[in-house]
């Protein structure tokens, strides 16, 4: 029970960080196209430098009008391309293709970036789908919130489960506690062994939980690799890092300690001689 209570949020954590990873790699749609004024056929170094300085910008690529036409041709087919080519002037503008970094609140910052781009002299027009940004952001936020909710729920579960074990431990040593209090034990003295009990239960539960997490990830990897092969891509599923595992261990031990403090506060005061 304790192991599961710790394994579930840990797995969720791994899941969310993988999700963030995947959507981060594949930032389809999280991009801005800035169409430059006609006649600008070389990369406008001022604009490119400015973009370099933007925190939100992951990558930028200048596409000249000619390159644009070629890409257009490969997309729509030779005939239509020939048609376009038959025009006296290339109808396509040079473009700067900007890929953005995923981060919290990116919809708003991206919107600001787009406005700033629009007001630059080199830029004729900007294509940018704010709605899409909002959706992508909401999705990532939802996952993170779900994760926090699960963490809270299962964290309090750990506190309750350990608190209960400690309560049983206190009850089984009632006689000893009463006698100790009669001969001058303070509350702190009486509860010390139970705080350690809570700590060890928490740490032990964490080890069990980490073991379960590891097994689940192993199983997942087993099922995912054929999919990866079929698609010829690597989803790059990554497990739990060592620091993260240590956090789980520490956090769980702390929760155990907390559960023990609560159990002692409730139980030890009632164990008075008399």
């Amino acid at each position, binding site marked *: 029970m304790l192991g599961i209570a710790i394994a579930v949020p840990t797995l969720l954590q791994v899941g969310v960080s993988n999700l963030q990873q995947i959507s981060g790699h594949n930032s389809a749609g999280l991009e801005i196209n800035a169409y430059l004024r006609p006649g600008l056929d070389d990369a406008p170094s001022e604009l490119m430098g400015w973009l370099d300085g933007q925190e939100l910008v992951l990558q930028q690529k200048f596409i000249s009008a000619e390159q644009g036409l070629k890409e257009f041709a490969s997309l729509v087919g030779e005939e239509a391309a020939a048609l376009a080519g038959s025009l006296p002037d290339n109808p396509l503008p040079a473009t700067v293709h900007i890929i953005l970094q995923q981060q919290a609140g990116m919809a708003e910052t991206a919107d600001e970036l787009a406005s700033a781009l629009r007001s630059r002299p080199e830029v004729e027009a900007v294509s940018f789908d704010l709605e899409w940004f909002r959706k992508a952001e909401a999705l990532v936020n939802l996952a993170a919130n779900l994760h926090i909710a699960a963490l809270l729920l299962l964290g309090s579960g750990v506190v309750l489960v350990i608190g209960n074990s400690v309560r049983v431990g206190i009850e089984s040593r009632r006689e000893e506690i009463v006698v100790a*209090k*009669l*001969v001058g034990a303070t509350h702190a003295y009486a509860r010390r062994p139970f705080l350690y009990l809570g700590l060890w239960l928490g740490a032990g539960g964490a080890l069990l939980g980490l073991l379960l997490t590891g097994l689940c990830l192993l199983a997942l990897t087993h099922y995912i690799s054929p999919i990866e092969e079929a698609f010829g891509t690597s989803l790059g599923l990554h497990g739990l890092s060592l620091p993260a595992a240590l956090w789980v261990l520490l956090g769980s031990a702390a929760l155990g300690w907390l559960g023990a403090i609560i159990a002692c506060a409730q139980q030890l005061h009632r164990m008075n001689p008399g």
Partner: protein
Amino acid sequence: MIRFAAVNKAYAGRSALHNVSFLLERGEMAFLTGHSGAGKSTLLKLSMLIERPDSGEVTVNDQRLSTLRGRGIAHLRRNIGFVYQSHHLLNDRNVFDNVALPLQIAGFSHRDIARRVRAALDKVGLLSKERQIPSTLSGGEQQRVGIARAVVNKPPVLLADEPTGNLDPQLSTEILQLLQEFNNVGVTLLVATHDLALIAKMPHRSLILRQGELIAGAGSADAPAASNQPQDSAGNPIEQPARHAPASAADRQSGSGGIT
């Protein structure tokens, strides 16, 4: 050393102690007697904050108990040895460890603990049984382990609640003589017992409770309830305790009918 001033205590509306006042001087030894249910145990419990009075003030070792909380209670108890009828020994550890418990709690070093525990066990004549589990000992021996644990801390005050309750007369006398020896070296002692024959053998003041009221032996000026009892010695200075009065008072009392 122990002072009760107009102390009242009721359990669920039923009075267990009513307006009890007395003074037990430093180094004094006294008996606390009365029928079962008269309030003897309650009085002792109030003296070490196992219970608190509804009104009135209890002072022990110059500390007003109403002012004590938490750690203060723990430290008060380190200065009071308590001997029970049902010795409250722990049978998951041997005699040595039982006696060592108060010292461990008070934070003594291993060496001091070993030295003091052996001294206390020697005093009660059980040094040879330190490795035994208490439940394997006889009743009298268990009571002596309880006494060793109560005195191992060298407390200035020793309280005993029916310390001879389960023992035959011979063993009872031995236990009482043992307690007397601690009093001889200056420990203030209050022994609750209904064993009147035992009390009669020793020249100490008796505080007599009847249905929660202290009817004799209050001892000092602030004990009005006792002063108008013709048969008691309460008016006497406590440094010269009279031995005849308590027995007669208790005799009278034993005829006075059952108390729950």
